[in-house]
Structure formats: structure tokens, C-alpha cells
């Protein structure tokens, strides 16, 4: 079943089936009704079909970084409205409220299994994890700190692409982040979660020494809808999913959430 069909189906079914608030959730992929506490215990992964529910940056911080080790940087870099794009200021305000975040990425220093690392964790809940000037600059500074202090870099990516409301400035964040990576001589591990697409994938997210995807994650340059409209054909099953990319030799590995930290620790111990 394709992702867009899945979506449609959910829309229809959720109207029919009433799920008591809070206690139960339904798997987006296999429709299984799951006890929420069990899913949470299972790192927001469906115990029946291994579907990885989308989680936020705070979740990854807890999952991957040593407890209490994270120091946030560059929170003071805040969104401007360079094009005075209609509705952008309001959109930013709403996103801040909804996500309790200042922008679509958090960056800083942390420890993983006692080892110092520079991290950038994106958050899809902030305008679809889109990359505007703030995301670009925070990521660039994280790369720069990693380069200067010879620390490994870890990015966790979740993004629909460039932030359209910042127009050409958003496009140039691809150039800013990707060119900055030339100075990084330490290991860079990039985690591609669901979804990592367009401008973020076509810049720093693809440039890791190691590329790890979460199972089932949508990873691609163009959105499936755009491709379908362009070629006027149905897309093959599993198109642009992590497994598809692995098969085509585009990523290094697919790692389940429960093994993610151990995999990173092991890789860093080899590479550092």
C-alpha cells in the first residue's frame, strides 16, 4: 500500500472507528489498535508491523544523547521575515506555540556514551521541519564548532524541504550548509527519519560519512505527488522509502529506533 493511499484510508476509517482519547492509538501503517503506553515503551514503534511513528526532537534527544548532557546553542538566532511574505509572521508565531520550539532545529553539544559530539536535531512539528535562514545558520554553526573542536557531528533529519516563505534565502541555506562541510574532518553521521526530503536531503543531510535511515522513512528529492503528476504514472510500491534507497545503494543502513544509539556508539568508536 502506498503512503498516500494509507493517508486516505486513515481519513475514512478514523471517522468510523471511535478511539477513546489518550489510552489507545492506531498504527498509521497496519491499522492495529495499540495500547498507547505499550507503544511509548516500544519507542513509538508499532509492535505488530514495526512502523516508526513520527517523534519530535525532544524524543531523539532523550533517545540518543546521554542524560542531561545536552547544551543548547544558538537559541538566540531567531526567525526574520526577509521577504515580508504574506502570513509568514503569523505562521511562525503559531508554530512556536504549537511546538514549544523556537525553530525547526535544535543544535548544541552533548555526550553519547561519554563521548563529546556536536548535534543538530530537526523537528518536523515546526512548519514541516522546513529549512529557512535560522535552520541553515544553526546547522552551519554546529558544523563549524565540530570542525574547530574536532568533534564528530550527528544530525537527525526530518524535513519537507526549504521554507518557501523565505524564498531565495532558503535555497541558499543548502549552499551554506553543504559548502561548510568541506571544513569538517571529523566523522559525520546523518540520520534520515520520516520524512527527509527536498532541500535538506539535497544538502547537508545527504553528505554524512555514514547515512542511516529509520525503517519505512520517506526519503527523496521530489515529493511523490509531484513525481506522479510529472510522469503521469503510478509509482512503484515502496518508492522513496528507506528500504528502496538501501536497495539502490543510496544509504548505508537501515536501523530500528531501539538499536539507533548502539549503532551510533559503535560507529563512532570505529571512526573517531
Amino acid at each position, binding site marked *: 500500500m502506498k503512503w498516500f493511499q494509507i493517508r486516505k484510508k486513515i481519513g475514512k476509517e478514523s471517522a468510523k472507528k471511535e478511539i477513546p482519547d489518550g489510552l489507545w492509538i492506531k498504527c498509521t501503517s497496519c491499522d492495529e489498535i495499540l495500547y498507547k503506553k505499550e507503544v511509548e515503551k516500544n519507542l513509538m514503534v508499532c509492535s505488530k508491523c514495526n512502523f516508526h511513528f513520527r517523534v519530535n526532537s525532544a524524543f531523539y534527544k532523550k533517545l540518543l544523547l546521554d542524560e542531561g548532557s545536552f547544551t543548547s546553542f544558538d537559541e*538566540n*538566532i*531567531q*526567525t*526574520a521575515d*526577509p*521577504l515580508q*511574505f*504574506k502570513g509568514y509572521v503569523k505562521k511562525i508565531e503559531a508554530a512556536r506555540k504549537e511546538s514549544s520550539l523556537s525553530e525547526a532545529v535544535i543544535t548544541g553539544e552533548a555526550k553519547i556514551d561519554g563521548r563529546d559530539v556536536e548535534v543538530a536535531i530537526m523537528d518536523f512539528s515546526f512548519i514541516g521541519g522546513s529549512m*529557512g*535562514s*535560522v535552520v*541553515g*545558520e544553526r546547522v*552551519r554553526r554546529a558544523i563549524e564548532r565540530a570542525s574547530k573542536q574536532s568533534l564528530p557531528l550527528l544530525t537527525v533529519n526530518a524535513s519537507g524541504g*526549504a521554507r*518557501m*516563505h*523565505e*524564498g*531565495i*534565502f*532558503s*535555497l*541558499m*541555506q*543548502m*549552499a*551554506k550548509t*553543504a*559548502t*561548510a*562541510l*568541506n*571544513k569538517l574532518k571529523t566523522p559525520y553521521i546523518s540520520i534520515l527519519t520520516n520524512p527527509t*526530503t*527536498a*532541500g535538506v*536531503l*539535497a*544538502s*547537508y*543531510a*545527504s*553528505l554524512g560519512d555514514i547515512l542511516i535511515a529509520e525503517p519505512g522513512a520517506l526519503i*527523496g*528529492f*521530489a*515529493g511523490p505527488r*509531484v*513525481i506522479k503528476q*510529472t*510522469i503521469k504514472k503510478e*509509482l*512503484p510500491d515502496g*518508492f*522513496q522509502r528507506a528500504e528502496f534507497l538501501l536497495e*539502490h545503494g*543510496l544509504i548505508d543502513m537501515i536501523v530500528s529506533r531501539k538499536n539507533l544509539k548502539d549503532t551510533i556508539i559503535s560507529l563512532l568508536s570505529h571512526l573517531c
Partner: protein
Amino acid sequence: MIKHLDFEKPIIELHERIEELKALNGNMSGIYQTELKKLNAKLVKIRKEIFSSLTPWQRVEMARHPNRPYTSDYVKFLFKDWTEIHGDRRFSDDNAIITGIGSLEGISFVVVGHEKGRKITEKVKRNFGSAHPEGYRKALRVMKLGGKFNLPIVCLVDTAGAYPGIGAEERGQALAIAENIKEIAVIPVPIIVIITGEGGSGGALAIGIGDRIYMQEFSVYSVISPEGCASIIFRNQEYKKEAAGYLKITAEELKKFQIIDGIISEPEGGAHSNHEEAAKLVGETILKLYQELKDIPRDDLIDKRIEKFSQMGVYIEG
């Protein structure tokens, strides 16, 4: 048949009347001469009026004009002893991007540029200027050749965007673009980028990294097409004209934003009305920029190039 845009109609009509009058050349009396002079003056005035007040959407139409000169035209008018280089040595030769070496005023340049194709069969061969990963990989390969043999590089950007298709995704479209951006940044020769038509998002940026970024007067450069923006933000492609305005994609606006370094003027009526003159103006700019860049030590050149892109973006630092 020469195609023209709606707003060009008064110019085309006037032009036709002038041509008709000229056809009567044999028995041209004083009256005809005066009329001809009047019409020519009117043509200049109308052109100026129309082209100085184009809306953002009309500028998009200009950038996409079917008669606009393409990379092959600039090569024809500017670069002598042209040798085209084919293929990415990985998968295939992507005809949406032309790469090669040619000589401008005795200086050998590597030239890389999108090619949309003029006639329908050629457009299909060129995939309308929308490259697959192999196109970007070919571009990078040939640009590195420039780096190795100390040949300055000219990139001519004119694409609606990187191709969104199954094969493109299977072969890593995003990866190809990302690698180009990163690796072009450290090629140790002067790189001059000129947006000649449509600067379409990542597909443009993949050959858009350089020491100097210039735009032709009526080209546009954008993170997304106005149609795409309209359909995503306003849920309706009909808002493309408004979106073209909101996105701020014209050469003047991008110069003001310091995203580009300069603007290359176009002949009266736009580059499509006189390919040779358009090429001449582009050629002069390339030579001027090459003079500015050629003696900069290579390490400085690369540092400044990375620094240039690190400065781009607008945020509040509180």
C-alpha cells in the same frame, strides 16, 4: 514561427509595420521616410515602457521565453574551438546539461550549462533542460577537469528544476545535487555563474556555486516555481502571479538582497530579440569577472567562496 508573449504584441505589430514600410524601399519618398522615423521612435518608446514596467509574473514569462538564447547559443557566439565533453562515466550522457571547453578571447574556459532545446525533438532529447543525477555528475566531473588543468569555469543556469522522476530518485537526485554543491565549492579555479533564464531551485544551485553570481536582466532565480508555491501555500495554482511577486525572484531584488553580485543588461526587448547582442554582453561580463578573479591565490579563492555562501540568510540574533 516566431513565438511572442502577450505583452510583446504592440512591439511585434509595430515591428511588422516598419518591415512593411521598408519593403516599399524602392520608391521611398520623403513621406515614407518621415513615417518610418516616427514608427522607429515609437518602437523605442513602447519597448521602454513595456520592459520597464514588467510584473514579476511577466518576468517569469521572459525568463521562460521560447526564443530565449540557450547555452548552445552562447557557446556558438562566444566560445571558439569548442569541444563538447560527454557523459558522467557512471550511467549515461544527460543532454539536459552541456559541458565542454572553448576559448573566449584566447582564454580557455570550461563551460557548463543547462540546455532546454529549441525544437520539439530537441526539447525531448534535452528533457526540457531538467537534468537527472547523471547530468549533475557530468557537470561536476568536467568542472573538476577545469580545476585540475587550471581552466576557469563558466556556469550558465537555465532550468525549471532538477527532474522529478523515478529514475532520478533511484540514482540519487538529492545526493547528486548535495555533492555538487559541496565539491564545486573547493574547485581551485575561478568560477563564474550566470543565471541566463530560469534559476529553478536545487537544479539551478547544483551548478550555481561560484565566486561571482550574475543574473541577466530578465532572468529569475527562485527556491520554487511560482506555480509550485501557489499550489503549496495557497492550495491553488491560479495564484501563480501573486506568488511570483511574493517570492521576490527578479534580478533587481536578488541584487538588493546581495544574493547575486551583478546584473547583465539585455538588448532592447530582451535577450530573445537579439541573441548575438545578448551573447556579446554576457561575454564582456565573463571577461571582466575573470580579470577580477584570475590572480587571487587559490586557497583564498576557496575560502572566500565558502565565506560568501556562509553569509547568506536573514535572521535576528538576539
